[in-house]
């Protein structure tokens, strides 16, 4: 069915709403990357089979059937990935959230909650002896403010009908028939939304600059190259609500007068690519992408480019070089992307989350948007909460929320109640925040003051089992590997910094190494060519500032308190547990273990190469690591 005018869009919306309201029940099976990994596709098939074989139940799978009683739908990320596979049973406004659903549970859920109104208690989310029925009752979700993730997990991510029913394309229609391009740019500018990809540059300013370029061929590009290890927010949006991202890009294209757009998605997200391809095909079929959209003279085509495994392509000028078919290497600026971006034409380049915010801003207005978040950083921010935390998953909170609220109220505190040590924010381009930062409202500016960045929003929580020197080494080895090699400070500087860190964790560091790291880090920070190079030393500089003692301990005392650094571990045999079975002595590659048969053995620390073979093979758990 072609949607070729405002009127058809509205009538399709009415139809979609009444069709969805006619459902008795919807079974919403999470099909985010996380839940698929825990087996949710089989759960989906099982529910489909049960529904189809139950007499008296008409079931709907596809989007365009009518008169059905029960719908079985695949949704985007429902949020608590760790408890997957996740399933929601929805009857009107009444929703039950089930967790860890196994194949054997499906029939019981169907009989109790679909056919009747009973709840299967054992599959509810429980916390501290209390169980929670609906998703919005769960503290993890109840304490969030969802704008970008509004629909994520609530409906069929592939269905255009469901997107339209939820208010989809109403913003585009408002922009095109009530506002005009200039008013759209002004509204986005007024909203104060800042780019969610890391830099925090105001999106409205970018759009304004593109709109006033003399060159009339312009491009709209979406950065979906979410390369930060430990971040999956953008992937979840592309999977869970692809139409919202596309509508955001269409609004940008309409506002700046562009007729071609590109989405650059990283290769490790096959699901995102598949969902976006599907969405683009559906929109082309409906006439919402292509020529003369909604009967106007606005035309827009959208293309997908898959990344090929280069982190540096998350940098704007490297990303556009990659779309052009070149090595993804950043170039010197100016000229900026807004003047000469893709194919030397003025280009609006924003990330997934930024575009996904735009439809709500246009629909509800800049003032509404500014009412969320802080003065300097309006709106919400999505974070992926991982590491040593009770509830891992995808969250969205207003800017200005404190770390304490995120980690303890939403995240449920650290795993097994361990004491909090630090949180790494902004991935390899960010830094660590500690105890003393717990009560600071997080926004673009406040985090910068502490020598970290909000970045794209990865939050990795660390406890006493994490060695901060090792973490710094880990990030440096990542950025070093990913350095494109164009500029000397990054290519050589990160290499030397990595060598120093490697010798420190191996117990061969010198006290002067601390000054060397500081000096090299400051140099790379100020002299690298691109933003990624400039921020590469941040994890080292911030751990040096917050955890200098750990560095000194590694260098001077040759100790790693977290017992992580292999070369600094001391293996000891507990004589009370050792049975003298001689297994460890026989397995030791350097003959460092001695002792009589049936008597406790000992390890000669001078000979030991810390390989851990003895510990791994001891049947009596008699070998431990001394801190």
């Amino acid at each position, binding site marked *: 069915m072609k949607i070729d005018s405002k009127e058809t869009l509205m009538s399709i919306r009415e139809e979609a709403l009444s069709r969805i309201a006619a459902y008795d029940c919807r079974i919403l099976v999470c099909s985010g990357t996380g839940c698929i990994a825990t087996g949710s596709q089989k759960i989906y098939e099982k529910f489909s089979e049960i529904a189809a074989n139950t007499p008296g139940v008409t079931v709907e799978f596809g989007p365009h059937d009518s008169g059905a009683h029960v719908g079985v739908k695949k949704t985007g990320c429902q949020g608590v990935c760790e408890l997957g596979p996740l399933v929601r049973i929805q009857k009107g406004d009444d929703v039950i959230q089930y967790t860890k659903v196994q194949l054997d549970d499906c029939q019981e859920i169907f009989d109790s909650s679909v056919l009747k109104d009973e709840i299967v208690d054992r599959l509810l989310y429980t916390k501290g002896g209390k169980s929670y029925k609906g998703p919005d009752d769960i503290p993890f979700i109840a304490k969030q403010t969802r704008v970008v993730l509004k629909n994520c997990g609530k409906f069929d991510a592939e269905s255009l009908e469901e997107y339209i029913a939820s208010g989809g394309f109403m913003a585009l229609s408002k922009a095109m028939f009530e506002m005009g391009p200039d008013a759209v740019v002004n509204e986005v500018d007024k909203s104060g939304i800042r780019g969610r990809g890391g830099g925090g540059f105001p999106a409205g300013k970018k759009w304004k600059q593109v709109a006033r370029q003399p060159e009339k061929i312009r491009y709209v590009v979406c950065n979906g190259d979410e390369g930060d*290890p430990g*971040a999956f927010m953008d*992937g979840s949006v592309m999977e869970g609500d692809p139409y919202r991202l596309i509508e955001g890009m269409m609004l940008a294209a309409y506002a700046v007068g562009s007729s071609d757009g590109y989405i650059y998605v990283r*290769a490790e997200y096959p699901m995102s690519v598949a969902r976006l391809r599907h969405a683009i095909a559906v929109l082309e079929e409906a006439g919402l992408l292509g020529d003369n959209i909604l009967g106007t003279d606005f035309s827009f085509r959208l293309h997908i480019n898959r990344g090929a495994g*280069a982190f540096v392509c998350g940098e704007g000028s490297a990303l556009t070089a990659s779309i052009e078919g070149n090595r993804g290497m950043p170039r010197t600026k100016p000229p900026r992307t807004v003047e000469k971006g893709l194919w030397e034409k003025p280009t609006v380049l924003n990330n997934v989350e930024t575009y996904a915010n735009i439809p709500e801003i246009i629909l509800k207005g800049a003032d509404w948007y500014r009412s969320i978040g802080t003065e300097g950083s309006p709106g919400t921010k999505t974070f*992926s909460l*991982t590491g040593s935390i009770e509830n891992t998953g995808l969250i969205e909170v207003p800017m200005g929320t404190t770390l304490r609220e995120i980690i303890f109220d939403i995240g449920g505190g650290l795993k097994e109640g361990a004491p909090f040590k630090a949180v790494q924010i902004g991935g390899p381009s960010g830094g660590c925040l500690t105890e003393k930062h717990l009560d600071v409202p997080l926004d673009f500016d406040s985090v910068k003051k502490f020598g970290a960045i909000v970045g794209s929003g990865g939050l*990795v929580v660390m406890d006493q089992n994490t060695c901060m020197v090792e973490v710094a080494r880990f990030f440096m080895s990542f950025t070093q590997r990913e350095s494109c090699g164009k500029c000397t400070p990054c290519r050589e500087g990160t290499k030397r910094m990595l060598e120093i860190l490697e010798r420190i964790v191996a117990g061969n560091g010198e006290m002067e190494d601390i000054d060397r790291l500081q000096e090299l880090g400051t140099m790379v920070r100020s002299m690298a060519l691109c933003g990624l190079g400039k921020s590469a030393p941040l994890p080292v500089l911030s751990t040096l500032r917050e955890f200098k003692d750990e560095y000194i301990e590694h260098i001077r005392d040759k100790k790693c308190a977290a017992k992580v650094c292999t070369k600094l571990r001391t293996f000891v045999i507990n004589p009370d547990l050792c049975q003298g079975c001689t297994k460890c002595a026989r397995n030791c590659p350097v003959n460092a273990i001695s002792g009589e048969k049936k008597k406790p053995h000992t390890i000669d620390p001078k000979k030991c190469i810390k390989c851990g073979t003895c510990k791994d093979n001891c049947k009596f758990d008699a070998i431990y690591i001394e801190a």
Partner: protein
Amino acid sequence: MLDQSYYTKTDEIIERYGKKASSLIPIMQDIQEVYRYLPGELLEYVAGQIGIKEAKAYSVATFYENFSFEEKGKYIIKVCDGTACHVRKSTPILETMFKELGLSKKKHTTDDMMFTVEMVSCLGACGLAPTMMVNEEVHPKMSPEKAIDLIQELRGENR
């Protein structure tokens, strides 16, 4: 020497994206999807077809980590070493895989062309760390023991 079928297939892929310089990366991606590696002969052929120098094609192909001139195994195992997986102990999983399959950081593919083991920087399923991906399927909450079980299961499928 590759037989004619490779070139016929490549023509088909070139057709999909058009004979222009910007088609290089998607064409290489699709060739690699079909053959699990990028044969040098085909890359040179593509360069000629889309009108770029062979040197340029090689410079682009070698820049991106995903392109491989060596044939990969039937099962491409990507062990995630993103931050979340790293702090939940992904390194021992990688080491176990290397040990089990007789591979190393230098040797990625087993001689029987069954397994290729690589380390990647994030699969986007951080909530289920540590993870790994076998071809396109993500496996959650891994451990060295589970990794060995999985390899044995995959070996079993081929007996």
